[in-house]
């Protein structure tokens, strides 16, 4: 095993890449990524497919035999911080990226030896500006390359067979408070990359790089003039709103980062993603809707041009970033079949949108505790905000639900067409907001807000729910002690899988939510399960390794209840259940059964 560092590889790597051939590899390179994603035996995209369903057609594991699942193989990731991603399986190789320092491994599924390992050289300043643990959400695969996002903002293409560096691009600047934690999405010959952090008031953006060269193809900002937002005549929303909904030129520091998941509809040729909170914390200091923060965007991946945009939380005061995954599903909503985009937002509302036009069809609470708004006006998409639950300068506000980490954060849901349900991992914390606290950064006083998070009504801090999209109701709820900060996998065997922050990996009946099996992994789980086959048998893999915002106290050694933007209080007892440490854990049925 040889550690490949960034320096020293350039054009020669390209030549070597062409010469190599791995089993099933050359055949795969001829088919497009969308064709490759149709093979249920592999898992070639972070969210399984362009529609981000995380629904596998594999069915060896069923509701009847899931109780027999056992560990097939495991591997340490060599990193201890939060593992929010998932492996890929391409051919007979499993790839995964660890939390910072972002080790990348290619593992042979025949004998589990490491074909190659790669760790990027990074600017350590990124560690100090990452807001919510040093997480990573996985690599992408395309055209024989593994695309790696590094925390310090570098995007790196590696030869999938050798691990050699093909190209490196710098997407963002850690010195400006920007980091990179999301998983890229490859669409045709473009690598779609977001940005995290965006502190010091920088505008968020989405960028496309040429898959072959790493050259920047386009960059679309979240705020500013239409030319910066890549908004043209085709855009169906208001023009110049990226400037006109801001006071003065505050759009220049508008925030709206893009650190979530990206999906794609090949037929409509549109990429979908969400933007995060506006740049300045104090809402009274940035009057206006602050478009296009907190927004679902649809863009042409070839040009970056925006087709439509829908802002969910205008003039955000709660930190309800709109970056959660956009699941594309053809479903029946209110009696009509529609190509929909379904999005479970941090603000606690599920949005069901016609993905062709951005027209909102249905928006309902997916946690009854949500109280910052009574409902969403479906005609305009605007929330009816409850003034008593709105943080504002000069007032202390108690009992805001959800807390800033939302009714759901980045942990991706799954759409199961068999049951018709979306299986959604959710958070169930509320918060108090104290506006007037004098605070201290060793040596430097300031006036800040103190946020304290705590369990919502019922005392559970999370739940996995089944969402029936036809009329927007919760079909069943499995409460969890901690926020359900890991993603969900559904399968054609009728079994759904997810992990918990206290370390359990669970198989449940998708239809009923009934627990079928569980296993306690080495660390808490905030990663997303995948499934694949090898030599004719189905495997389910999960990255175990607690951390992330919800477990920031444990990950960063914080015990002050209001630290971690108030999140530490909500998980002070996590160390009674688990400890840090990254491991890949893979399960299967006993092979002789």
């Amino acid at each position, binding site marked *: 095993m040889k550690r490949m560092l960034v320096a020293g590889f350039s054009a020669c790597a390209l030549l070597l890449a062409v010469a190599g051939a791995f089993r099933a590899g050359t055949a795969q390179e001829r088919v497009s990524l969308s064709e490759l994603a149709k093979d249920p035996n592999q898992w070639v995209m972070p969210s399984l497919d362009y529609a981000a369903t995380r629904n596998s057609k594999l069915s060896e594991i069923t509701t009847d035999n899931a109780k027999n699942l056992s560990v097939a193989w495991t591997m340490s990731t060599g990193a201890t911080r939060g593992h929010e991603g998932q492996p890929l399986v391409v051919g007979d190789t499993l790839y995964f990226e660890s939390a910072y320092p972002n080790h990348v491994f290619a593992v042979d599924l025949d004998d589990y030896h490491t074909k190659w390992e790669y760790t990027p050289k990074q600017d350590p300043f990124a560690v100090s500006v990452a807001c919510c643990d040093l997480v990573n959400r996985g690599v992408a695969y395309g055209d024989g390359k593994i695309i790696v996002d590094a925390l310090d903002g570098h995007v790196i293409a590696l030869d999938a067979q050798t691990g050699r560096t093909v190209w490196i691009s710098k997407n963002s600047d850690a010195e400006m408070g920007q980091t990179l934690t999301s998983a890229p999405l490859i669409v045709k010959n473009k690598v779609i990359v977001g940005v995290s952090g965006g502190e010091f008031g920088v505008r968020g953006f989405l960028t496309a790089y040429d898959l072959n060269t790493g050259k920047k193809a386009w960059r679309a900002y979240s705020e500013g003039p239409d030319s910066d937002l890549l908004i043209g005549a085709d855009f169906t929303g208001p023009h110049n709103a990226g400037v006109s909904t801001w006071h003065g030129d505050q759009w220049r520091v508008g925030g709206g980062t893009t650190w979530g998941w990206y999906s794609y509809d090949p037929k409509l040729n549109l990429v979908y993603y969400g933007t995060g909170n506006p740049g300045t*914390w104090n809402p009274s200091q940035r009057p206006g809707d602050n478009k296009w923060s907190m927004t679902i965007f649809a863009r042409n991946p070839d040009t970056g041009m925006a087709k439509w945009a829908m802002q969910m939380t205008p003039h955000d005061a709660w930190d309800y970033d709109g970056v959660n995954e956009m699941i594309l599903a053809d479903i029946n909503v209110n009696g009509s079949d529609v190509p929909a985009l379904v999005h479970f937002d941090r603000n606690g509302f599920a949005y069901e949108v016609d993905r062709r036009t951005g027209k909102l069809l249905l928006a309902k609470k997916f946690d009854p505790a949500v109280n910052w708004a009574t409902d969403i006006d479906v005609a305009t998409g605007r929330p009816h905000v409850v003034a008593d639950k709105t943080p504002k*300068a000069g007032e202390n506000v108690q009992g805001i639900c959800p807390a800033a980490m939302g009714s759901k954060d980045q942990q991706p849901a799954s759409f199961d067409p068999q049951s018709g349900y979306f299986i959604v991992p959710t958070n169930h914390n509320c918060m108090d907001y104290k506006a*007037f606290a004098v605070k201290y*950064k060793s040596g*430097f006083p300031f006036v*800040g807000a103190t946020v304290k998070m705590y369990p919502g009504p019922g005392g559970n801090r999370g739940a996995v729910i089944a969402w029936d999209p036809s009329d927007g109701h919760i079909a069943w709820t499995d409460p969890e002690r901690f926020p359900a900060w890991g993603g969900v996998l559904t399968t054609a065997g009728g079994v759904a899988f997810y992990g918990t922050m206290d370390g359990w990996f669970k198989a449940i009946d998708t239809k009923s939510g009934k627990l079928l099996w569980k296993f306690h992994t080495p660390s808490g789980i905030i990663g997303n399960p995948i499934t694949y086959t090898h030599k004719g048998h189905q495997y389910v893999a999960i990255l175990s390794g607690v951390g992330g915002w919800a477990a920031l106290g444990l990950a960063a050694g914080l015990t002050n209840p209001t*630290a971690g933007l108030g999140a530490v209080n909500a998980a002070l007892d996590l160390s009674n259940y688990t400890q840090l440490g990254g491991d890949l854990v893979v399960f299967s049925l006993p092979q002789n059964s």
Partner: protein
Amino acid sequence: MRLLLTLAAATALGTVAAFTPGTAGATAGSANELRVCADPDYLPFSNRAGAGFENQIASYVARVLHERLVYTWDSSRGAGGFDQFLRETLDAKKCDVVTDVPYASDGILASNAYYVSSYVFVFPKRKHYDITSMDSPVLAHLKIGFETDTPAENGLKLRTLILHAVPFDSTDESKAPPATSEMLAALASGKIAVGVTWEPAIGMYLRAMPQFDVVAVPNSRSQGSPEQYAFPMAMAARSGDTVTKAKLDRVIAQHRAELTRILARNGVRLYAPSDAAAGL
């Protein structure tokens, strides 16, 4: 998600000057010991050698109380920052006093304030910049250094001046302890044209760098909501430790002039409470 939770707002500055004469009584902790927690490596505030202004304040308080000064050292700049420092030191009863916290801080029992200082603009005198507030037009054309996660960052952000500004983080533990202020070094080398920082963080070094002008950043409402740049500073006792607070308040009431002299000797400039309230 964000690092900074800064909200500019007014505090009850009127109470700063209201001394509460301490009542005589038993002292907290071990008899005849003043147990202080401080950062061992964070000049100009404190260090193990006792060279920081906080060290000298602590020594003086111990002397007038006829108590032996006992330190517990812990970095206040690690993960979780100052709040975590307090939790692991003062809250954990490893000490009874921290000598420098903002008055009205949460999670501690603050003494009465013993000085008021301010965020300042600092720039070479020879440039004669016309800088009187965050709204001074010349700032639009200057490269501005700022300390991250402070009112300076928020004030620059509100005016979009941050787009041509350079971040500094004095609390970055990964860097070697400073021989001088990194921001002043950047000013001296021309990397930045003006810096915005908390005056006590640079005052000690400014005495050897007379080429710099210092102008207090006035509190402001110009952007529609209050921004606070001047802060009254106090000592901290543990929450509920009214005995230690009374002891500290007594020292502050009876020895304010000498405390002020110690600060001045270390280049910490004071701003009267009326200055601190100006503009709010």
